[in-house]
C-alpha cells in the first residue's frame, strides 16, 4: 500500500509537470519589466505601460508584464523572460535595470531588448533616451511669461549631468523668451527621496522672491511642489504631467516614454528593430509639454482631471513657435559638455 501510494503520487506529480510543458506559451509576445514602484505611480511605469498597451492593441499580440519589488529581482525576471523564448521584445523600464540587462543581453544575444532612460551598450539592446534639454526649453518659455516677480527657482535632485541637462535647456528657454525674467542658481537636494529637504530648498527660493518653482528631483521634487502650494506661487512638473497634483501647477515637461516604448515595440514586430542608442526629442515627439493642445487632452484623460490655470494665447503661441523652431533645428538647445 505504501509503495502503491508512493508510486501514485510520483505518477501524479510527473503527470502534472508534463502537462505543464504541453501548455507552453506561443512566441511573439511583448514583455515588459517595470521599474520598482510598479503600476499606479502616475509616472514612468504607468506611461511605459500605456505605450506597451497601445502596441499590444494595435498589433493584436499578447503583453506580459511584471512589477519587480526590489532591484535585486531584475536579473531573475529578465532571464526568466528571455529564456522562455516567447518574446519578440523585452522592454525594461528604468535606469537601475542597466547592470542586470548588460549581463542578460550577452547571455541571450538573439533576444531583442529595450531599456528606457539608460544606455546598455549591447548590439541587441535599444537604449531609449530623451533630450530633456529640449523639454526644459519649452517649459522655460512658459515660466518666463508666467512669473510676475521675474524670478524663477529650480530644484534639482542631484548635481549630475543628467539633471543639469534639464536646467541648461530651461535657462536657455527663459532667455529666449526675453521677458526680463531670470533663473536663480540651481539648488540641489542631493537625493531623490527626500521631500522634506526638497520643500526647505523651495521655500528658501520663494523667500528670495521666486514665484515659479520647477523641480526635477524625483520624490524630493514633490516637496518643492508642496512648498509652492503652501506659499501660493506657481510650480511646474516633470517627466509626466503632474498638474493633477494641484491647481498651482500650470504645466509639466513630458517625457513621452509611451511613444518611445510603442515605437520600439512596433519596430521589433515589423522587423526593423535595431540595437543602439536612440536619443530623441521634440522633433520625434519623445519630448513634449502637457499644455500643448495636441497633448493636453491625452493627459487629462489619463489622469482624470482638467487643467485650471489658463495659459494666455500669446504665451502658447510663443511656446508653439519655440517648439517648431527646436524641432526644425533652427534653435539648437545647448547640453552639458558630458553629452557631446
Amino acid at each position, binding site marked *: 500500500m505504501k509503495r502503491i501510494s508512493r508510486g501514485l503520487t510520483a505518477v501524479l506529480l510527473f503527470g502534472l*509537470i508534463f502537462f505543464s510543458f504541453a501548455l507552453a506559451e506561443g512566441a511573439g509576445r511583448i514583455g515588459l519589466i517595470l521599474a520598482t514602484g510598479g503600476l499606479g505611480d502616475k509616472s514612468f511605469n504607468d506611461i511605459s505601460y500605456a505605450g506597451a498597451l497601445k502596441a499590444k492593441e494595435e498589433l493584436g499580440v499578447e503583453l*506580459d508584464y511584471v512589477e519587480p519589488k526590489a532591484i535585486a529581482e531584475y536579473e*531573475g525576471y529578465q532571464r526568466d523572460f528571455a529564456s522562455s523564448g516567447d518574446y519578440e521584445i523585452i522592454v525594461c523600464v528604468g535606469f537601475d535595470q542597466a547592470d542586470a540587462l548588460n549581463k542578460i543581453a550577452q547571455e541571450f544575444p538573439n533576444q531583442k531588448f529595450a531599456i528606457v532612460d539608460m544606455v546598455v551598450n549591447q548590439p541587441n539592446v535599444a537604449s531609449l533616451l530623451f533630450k530633456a534639454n529640449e523639454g526644459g526649453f519649452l517649459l522655460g518659455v512658459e515660466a518666463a511669461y508666467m512669473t510676475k516677480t521675474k524670478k524663477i527657482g529650480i530644484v534639482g535632485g542631484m548635481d549630475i549631468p543628467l539633471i543639469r541637462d534639464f536646467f541648461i535647456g530651461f535657462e536657455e528657454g527663459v532667455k529666449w523668451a526675453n521677458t526680463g525674467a531670470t533663473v536663480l542658481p540651481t539648488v540641489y537636494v542631493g537625493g531623490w527621496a527626500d521631500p522634506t529637504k526638497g520643500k526647505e530648498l523651495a521655500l528658501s527660493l520663494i523667500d528670495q522672491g521666486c514665484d515659479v518653482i520647477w523641480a526635477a528631483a524625483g520624490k524630493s521634487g514633490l516637496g518643492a511642489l508642496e512648498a509652492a502650494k503652501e506659499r501660493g506661487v506657481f510650480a511646474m512638473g516633470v517627466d509626466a504631467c503632474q498638474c493633477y497634483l494641484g491647481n498651482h501647477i500650470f504645466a509639466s515637461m513630458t517625457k513621452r516614454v509611451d511613444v518611445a516604448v510603442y515605437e520600439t515595440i512596433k519596430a521589433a514586430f515589423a522587423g526593423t528593430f535595431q540595437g543602439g542608442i536612440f536619443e530623441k526629442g521634440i522633433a520625434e515627439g519623445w519630448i513634449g509639454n502637457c499644455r500643448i493642445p495636441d497633448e493636453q487632452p491625452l493627459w487629462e484623460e489619463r489622469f482624470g482631471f482638467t487643467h485650471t490655470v489658463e495659459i494666455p494665447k500669446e504665451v502658447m503661441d510663443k511656446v508653439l513657435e519655440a517648439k517648431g523652431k527646436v524641432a526644425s533645428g533652427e534653435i539648437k538647445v545647448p547640453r552639458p559638455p558630458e553629452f557631446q
Partner: protein
Amino acid sequence: MLRRARRFLEFPFLPEVVAILTAFLLGLLVLFFTGYPPLRAFSALFRGAFGSRNAFGQTLTQATPILFTSLSFLLSFRAGIFNIGIEGQLLMGAFVAALLGTMIRSLPLPLHLPLALLGGGLGGALWALIPALIKTYLGAHEVITTMMMSYIASYLTSYFVNYPFKAPGWVAQTNPVQPTALLPRILPPTQLSLAFPLALVFSVLVFYFLFRTYLGFQVRAVGLNPEVAENRGISVASRQILAFLLSGFVAGIGGAGEVLGVHGKFVDGFSPGYGWDGIAVSLVGRLHPLGCILASLLFGMLRAGGMTMARVTKVPLDLSLIIQALVILLIAAPRLIRIFILRKRGL
C-alpha cells in the same frame, strides 16, 4: 487491510505531504475564485520551477538563502532560544562580506573568498552576540531584542549603502566585489553559485554538531529542559550564547552567499525577508537539518515558479506567497492532524 491502512497512516511525513497538497488545492481554489486560470497558472508555476536548466537553477538559487536561515533558526531553537532576528544577522553578514570583498585588493582567490565568507559569518555572529549578552546579563527576552536588532541592521545597512559606502551612480549599492571574492557559478548562465553546495555542507555540519557531538547534545539538553541541564552541571547561559553565536554565524554566511554568489555587491533591500522565511522553513522542516533541505527546496520552487506564474498569467507573486503561507499554517498544525489520526484509530 487494516494493517495496511495503519501503515499508511504511520508514514512519517504524512502530515507534511497532506499539508502541502491541501495548500496547493486551496491555492487552486483561490486562483479560480479570483478569476485567474488555475491550471495555466499552476503549469507556469511548475515550468518556472523545473521546466528548464534556467528554471532549475532559479529554484536552487532561491532555496539557498532560506536553507541557511532555516539552519540558523534551527540552531537557536534547539537550544531553547527563539532567534527571530535572523534577517538582521543575514544583512550584517552580507554587508561585512561586501566590505571585505570590495576593499581588499590583490589577494588570491583561495584566501580572499574564504576571508570574505568568514567575515560575513562573524558579522552575523557578532550581531547575534548583542541580544545573547542582553539576555544573559539583563534578562531581556530575545524575541524582543533580536527583532529590534533586525530593524537596526536593516536601516543601518541601508544608510551605509546610501551614503558612506555608496557606489557612484543612482542605485543604493556598494561597489562590485573583487572577482577574487566571488563564489564561482556552478550552473551557468543561472545565478546558482557555490553557495548552494555550501549550504548543503552546512546542513550536514549542523546535523553532526547537534546529534553527534557532546557539545551539541548539551545544547539540545538545554533546549529540552534548562533546569535539568543546569542540575546536570551544564552551564545553560554559556550553551545558549554558543547557540546564539552559531545561529548568527550561519545567518551571516547566508547573507555573504547572496552578496558573493548572486549579486556581486550589497544592493539595498536585496533580501525580501529571507530571515523571516527561515523561521517558517525550519518549522516546516520539523526543526531537523535534513527536513530544512527539503522544505527550503519547496519554498525555493514556489518563489522561482511564482516569478514565471506572475509573468505568464499576471497572477501576482503574492499568490505564490499565499500558498507558502498556507503550507506554513497547515504544517504548524501537524500535531493536530496526528491527534486526529490517533483518535480515529481509537488510541
